[in-house]
């Protein structure tokens, strides 16, 4: 097994530093929202986690297409890694959204179009992992996984645009906001700075985790090949 590349070690350090700076900005630089109070500070990482979730599913769909075109197993490893990371962050997004909703909407959960589509998206990718675990033949598993990642990706733009297309109480952060939306707010320049820095930080976290997960996938692939050889 290969030792950790120097570039990955550097990326690890950069990622940790960025996360520390982003956390510091959220707590000590971003202004206190005058109506919602401290819970609004969840917003910066809540949206960033949602972004990483969708980014993970986008990458999975793209590499799914590449796998179907070329049939190289490395793309399947990337696809699985992307979905797994995407799911972890989409989960963070949904749970922190619920925590934010409790004091602001006075409920932990409501079947609002954005919340519903985000949950369906999460369940679709949970089913992706279940589907994979049920198939033993690696090539068949990779093929099914690739097709599923492409088809499942339909849920991602549906989730993203749900707050824009349907009547919803979920605020639209980027683009036109709905002033009437419960919990909507206009960002100040400082808030915007922290928001975009958080998005950037989480994008770097995604790349770092993806690299680690791909290395794990390659290792697991080697183990699987040997297991098949020995019929273990």
């Amino acid at each position: 097994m290969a030792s950790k590349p120097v570039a990955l070690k550097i990326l690890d350090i950069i990622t940790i530093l960025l996360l520390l700076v982003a956390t510091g900005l959220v707590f000590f630089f971003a202004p206190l929202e005058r109506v919602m109070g401290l819970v609004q500070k969840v917003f910066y990482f809540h949206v960033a986690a949602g972004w990483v979730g969708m980014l993970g599913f986008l990458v999975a769909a793209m590499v799914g297409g590449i796998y179907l075109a070329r049939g190289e197993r490395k793309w399947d490893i990337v696809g699985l890694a992307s979905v797994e990371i995407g799911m972890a962050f989409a989960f963070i997004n949904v749970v922190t959204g619920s925590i934010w909703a409790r004091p602001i909407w006075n409920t932990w959960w409501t079947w609002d179009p954005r919340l519903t589509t985000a949950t369906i998206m999460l369940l679709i990718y949970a089913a992706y992992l279940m589907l994979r675990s049920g198939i033993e033949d690696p090539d068949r598993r990779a093929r099914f996984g690739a097709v599923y990642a492409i088809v499942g990706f339909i849920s991602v733009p549906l989730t993203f645009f749900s707050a824009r297309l349907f009547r919803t109480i979920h605020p639209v952060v980027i683009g036109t906001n709905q002033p009437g939306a419960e919990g909507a707010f206009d960002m100040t320049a400082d808030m915007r700075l922290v928001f975009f820095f958080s998005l950037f930080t989480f994008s770097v976290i995604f790349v770092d985790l993806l690299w680690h997960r791909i290395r794990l996938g390659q290792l697991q692939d080697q183990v699987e090949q040997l297991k098949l050889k020995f019929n273990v």
Partner: protein
Amino acid sequence: MLFFLQEGPAQTGNYMIAGYVVIFGVMALYLVSLIVRRRNSIQDLETLQSLEEKEK
């Protein structure tokens, strides 16, 4: 809706703490799972490689 009538910001610090516990908790759990799975895979690989060498 009552919080629109209040003077200062709403007292929502506990919810913020809960949110960040979830954020850092899930990220830490995922990191730990990566480390544990890597360690297990390395052990499996070493065992299988030693089996392969014995067969030769």
